[in-house]
């Protein structure tokens, strides 16, 4: 009970800080980066539900992100569909696709699952590139309208910031709730020992498909938000590299930690700004980070930070005891 209250408090604190930030960054370019951090956090949380909670890897999550973006983009540019409706349709399309492919794919384990999701990602990438009549092919799809809410149009950084972060914060809260529930426990049980989970009555196959579907749904919402805030999309944003980037966010942030996903997304979104000097070598840096984190901080940055805080607290307590 006390633990639960503390969790709510931490979340409220986090949410308040996030919502106050734009007040200090009026008209700043950095606000634009923060919008991307919001979208990437949404994606990282989605992948974390699958990878961190249920322990099922996906190397093709950029495909769901892309699917959301393209469904939304195509519906609003080629047909007179309202952007909000397009967002909902995009999310449902991705969820339906994930549900259908989830049954055969999630029967696979470990490397085989990685290969299957990798293949799925590549197929979708080719699809985005080649169906030129719909997607505009490699040159992209432009003129995607902004989302609107009454008199409010989400066409500037500040409005986009609130739009993206309200949704991201909502999904983060739901994910935290899920983690400490019957379903969250069953997912973590599957992660630790699928056989034992099944013996305890957990329908592992169904639950894995369900969480895969939810994960795809959230990723597609992120894709739709991306399309409507950027107003332009091209296949390059939804390729294999981005799937790996998402995976890196989740792992360096901390598997199973929702705030870790935020941290990972924030670091990997800002990193390119600092890594401009390395140009195309950024993928090498990601790889290096991944190796170092998995070797020295297997619980990710969040786990590392927690350990650090514990050490400091015990040091302070220790010295206080000495002085007394």
């Amino acid at each position, binding site marked *: 009970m006390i633990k639960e209250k503390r969790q709510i408090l931490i979340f409220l604190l986090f949410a308040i800080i996030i919502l106050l930030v734009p007040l200090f960054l009026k008209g700043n370019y950095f606000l634009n980066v923060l919008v991307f951090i919001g979208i990437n956090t949404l994606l990282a949380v989605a992948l974390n539900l699958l990878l961190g909670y249920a322990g099922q890897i996906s190397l093709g999550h950029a495909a769901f992100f892309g699917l959301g973006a393209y469904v939304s983009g195509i519906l609003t540019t080629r047909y007179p569909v309202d952007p909000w409706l397009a967002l909902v349709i995009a999310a449902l399309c991705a969820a339906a696709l994930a549900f259908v492919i989830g049954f055969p794919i999630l029967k696979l384990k470990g490397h085989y699952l990685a290969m299957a999701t990798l293949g799925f990602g590549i197929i979708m990438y080719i699809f985005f590139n080649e169906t030129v009549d719909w997607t505009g092919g490699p040159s992209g799809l432009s003129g995607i309208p902004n989302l609107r809410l009454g008199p409010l149009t989400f066409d500037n950084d500040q409005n986009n910031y609130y739009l993206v972060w309200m949704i991201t914060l909502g999904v983060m809260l739901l994910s935290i709730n*899920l983690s400490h*529930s019957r*379903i*969250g426990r069953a997912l973590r*049980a599957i992660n630790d020992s699928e*056989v*034992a989970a099944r013996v*305890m009555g*957990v329908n*592992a196959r169904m639950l894995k498909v369900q969480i895969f579907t939810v994960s795809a749904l959230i990723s597609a919402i992120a894709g739709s938000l991306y399309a409507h805030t950027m107003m332009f999309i091209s296949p390059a944003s939804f390729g294999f590299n981005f799937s790996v980037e998402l995976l890196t966010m989740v792992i360096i942030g901390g598997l199973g930690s929702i705030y870790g996903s935020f941290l990972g997304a924030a670091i990997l979104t800002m990193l390119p700004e600092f890594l401009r000097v390395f140009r195309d070598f950024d993928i090498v840096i990601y790889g290096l980070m991944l190796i170092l984190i998995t070797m020295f901080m297997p619980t990710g940055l969040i786990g590392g930070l927690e350990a650090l805080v514990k050490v400091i607290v015990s040091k302070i307590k220790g010295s206080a005891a000495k002085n007394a």
Partner: protein
Amino acid sequence: MLRVEGITQLFGGLTALTDVSFSVAPRSITGIIGPNGAGKTTLFNIVTGLYTQTEGKVYLGEKNISFFEPEVLAKLGLVRTFQNVELFGQMSVLENVMVGLHTKSKSGIFSCAFKLPGQIKEEKIVREKAHKWLEFTGLEDLADVEACNLPFGKGRLLEISRAMAVEPQIILMDEPAAGLNSRETAGLAELIHKIQDLGITIVLVEHDMELVMDVCESIVVLNLGKKLAEGTPREIQENKAVIAAYLGED
């Protein structure tokens, strides 16, 4: 209670079990013994739905449960523990038992994520029940410990608490005494009787003969994938074929 009929299991060209049949009386404690490689664990894996037998049928009461999935068997009240202790290592002791209560609750992803009132109520009941089963095995003090940090003997007890949380009709234990010291084994024997007193049928695979002879009411002996003998502990101890299988013939 549990009836196994003509189970045969082939692994490629290897025959692990040949035409094994026996039955377990309700509320009894039955031991399955045999030298290493006799096929005891294979038999357990078939009964609990982890392996698919080549031939033969398994009945729970009057119900044919051959080829049922483990998660379905759990709902029907058949549960097992593992030889190598399969705990959910990254979860707390209490949470492990709460997973055992999975079939006793029904909130889905949606109501869990949105914390609907029904889910909150259910969560409270699940938590209380889980504490009750920890008390049952005496692990109450360790409720918040991460399961991977438990010593081996306590891990065994946790596995039993978790299995009990399923509220089974029948519980199958795969070598519950393996790796336990003599004091822990004595405690285990007591616990097994306590489980029986709740009206639950128990089947154990076990190498610890002292424990088997002490708690079991009937014993099935397997050797090289075949049923060698079946009977009360006394009958088994006097059975020539059993003695030959264990000590070798002269």
